[in-house]
């Protein structure tokens, strides 16, 4: 085991822990915050099933974004769908390859081009459209740069300077099964993995939380039935039960 392999092993354990625990805690935090009023953006579904369908259209087809701006939609949609394919393909480094996984390997490979094109489109918009430039912080550019770095370093290994993927798989299997084995000594691979770890680390404290967050968005996930079913939050109920007008008059206990 080289020093670098040990370092990367620790890094990926930490990154995984922080990603899973951090995102989990954040989601839990959001679900614990009351939604005191019915605020679905209408027209909204009037059944729970309808809400599931609305959310499906939103997260799979980016329906609202499509209505908003066709370019942003195109770049974002291409990027996200390509990212899914690339991610799926990468499961081969953690588990045995079945029929499905081997079927999607080529799609996952070439999806990386679409991913980079999508990212370039999003970056171009951020630079060229004055309105989007105005709202962009350095972190917004860095996030795109990070994703592009990951994609390009990955593509280098897939299409130009191959790395020993059997060894890579051994390394990650080792992290899971505690049967450690080293990483290949490839600078591109190390860069690729470092950037991925950074992405995992910043996920819970950045705007990447939009991914789980959209499911919890009251304007999208509420059923439009306020007249039929009374909706009331705990803190508002306290006002009612104690017959108070203002929250600072409510007694807790």
């Amino acid at each position, binding site marked *: 085991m080289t020093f670098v392999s040990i370092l990367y092993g620790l890094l990926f354990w930490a990154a995984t822990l922080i990603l899973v625990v951090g995102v989990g805690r954040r989601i839990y*935090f*959001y679900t614990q*915050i*009351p*939604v*005191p*009023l*019915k*605020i679905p*953006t*209408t*027209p*909204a*579904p*009037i059944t729970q099933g309808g809400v599931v369908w609305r959310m499906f259209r*939103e997260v799979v087809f*980016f329906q*609202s*974004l499509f*209505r*908003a*701006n066709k370019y*942003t939609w195109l770049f*974002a949609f291409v990027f996200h769908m390509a990212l899914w394919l690339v991610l799926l393909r990468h499961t081969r480094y953690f588990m045995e390859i079945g029929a499905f996984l081997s079927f999607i390997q080529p799609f996952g490979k070439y999806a990386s081009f679409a991913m980079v094109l999508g990212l370039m489109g999003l970056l171009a*918009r*951020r630079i060229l*459209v*004055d*309105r*989007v430039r*105005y*709202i962009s*912080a*350095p*972190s917004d550019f*860095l996030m795109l740069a990070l994703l592009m770095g990951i994609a390009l370093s990955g593509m280098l290994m897939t299409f130009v300077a191959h790395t020993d993927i059997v060894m890579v798989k051994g390394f990650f299997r080792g992290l899971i099964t505690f049967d450690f084995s080293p990483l290949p000594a490839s600078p591109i691979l190390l860069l690729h993995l470092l950037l991925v770890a950074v992405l995992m680390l910043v996920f819970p*404290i*950045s*705007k990447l*939380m*939009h991914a789980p*967050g*959209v499911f*919890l*968005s*009251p*304007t*999208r996930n509420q059923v*439009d039935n*306020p*007249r*039929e079913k*009374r*909706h009331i*939050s705990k*803190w*508002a109920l306290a*006002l009612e039960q104690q017959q108070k*007008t*203002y929250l600072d008059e409510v007694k807790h206990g």
Partner: protein
Amino acid sequence: MADYEVPKLNGEGYVEIPTIKPDAMAGKGPFIAKPDFQKALHFPADFQTDEQGKFELVADWKERALTKLDDLRHRYRSLQLYLDICVKCGACTDKCHYYIGTHDPKNMPVARQDLLRKVYRRYFTFAGKHFPKLVGAVDLTEEVVDDWYNYYHQCSQCRRCSVYCPYGIDTAEVSMAAREILDHIGRGSKYNNEIISKVFKVGNNLGLPQPALADTLEGLEEDVEADTGIKVRFPLDEEGAEVLLVTPSADFFAEPHVDGLMGYAKVFHEAGITWTLSSYASEGANFGMFIGSYENMRRIALRIREAAIKLKVKRIVFGECGHAWRVAYSFLNTLAGPFDFLDPKYPVPQHILEVTWGLIQDGKLVIDKSQNDDKVLTFHDSCNVARGSRMGDKPGGQFEYPRNVIKAVCNHFVDMPADTIHDATYCCGGGGGLLTDDLMELRIKGAQPRMEALKYVTEQQGVTHMAAICAICKSQFTKVIPYYGFKMEQIVSVHQLVSKALVLQRQVSVQARPDEDDDDDDNDDA
């Protein structure tokens, strides 16, 4: 008309998206509420004016602002989530009528949210605490407060941006929270808070006491009788009526609102439905929503519950008012429910258009459409009705009901361009607590997208009148459309059209005047 720089219309139906002009709308914002008004709304009032007449902030304003922000983000998931998950994709940047009309980038929805988000990040997030420059986090300073006050009062909370956001981020939620924070540090808006305190004191936004209201309604009865020869009742505080009508107080005197009120009265009369207004809850509007104050919004809403109980009505019906209908439809059951003491056959509350359209469908109203043949109508979807409520039992009923009623009473109706109607409708430019003369420039510029759409159908399809179902829309349009070369008479209430076309069959009201019971001459009571 005072002198304002009025945007030029291109006649194509849509406004070209402008390039940003930073600080185009920099300024002080609307007039600030005095401590007395703040006190009436249970907000801190420990601030004064300095020698130049400028309002100071409350003591420890910074700490109190941050405490309030922290409180709100733990009570409203919308706020916490929306501050966190925006990816700055820019989808909303060209959707706000105030951005389109003013070109000020801080009127882009995401930039408006950022005014608060930057402070939230600085004090409540890891990245903002340790790497503020990287994520655009800023310290809370008096300049930031000034920007909040100015730009959160350039948002009409119309939610158009939330339609287009891939995560449904609703700037209204953020601007309401910001206004609530401002209210806690001595930066309430005079217009909103003065109005709310009038509701608490008198019962309506106008401060119209019971005798004045009774007098006004009597005058309306006389007007309708002079016009039709029939005594159509406008009952006030009449116990035992079937319907409590809650309508914006502008309906009692403003034009064209009052013509709409006459329409409701005629519909009730013709259908033989007894009804009453309440002097205690003589206001449909609920400005508590505009200032983001659940407590004050609830306090106003509870008056309606009390009035309904006291007057022993069976149904609650709301008149034409946009945000009132959002509060009524979406929030009333939450704020002042449950309404198990009302007739379960009817939804609580109902919109007057639900009543009228139901009666038209049942063939209970005799209509002479030709009475409106002098007009070609179009319809302005009010933002709060379109994106924050519903009518009927199907999604989108809020678009169908008003159009169905208009088409049932008028022969000529055309819609404005598709991207300006239904849930893509533009705010009139005066919603969200901005309908005040000290924001006139903003109101004129904010109306531009709607004016562009109206001009298009005027020129292309001969539209002569635009109908609306919101007191604020009606007041705003009658005031600003002259700047764009239209006439204020071109704005009409939907129930004004109903009023015109409705042929009264019922000669005698089913509801006797309480004071007429003993009269000999004209006792209509059967």
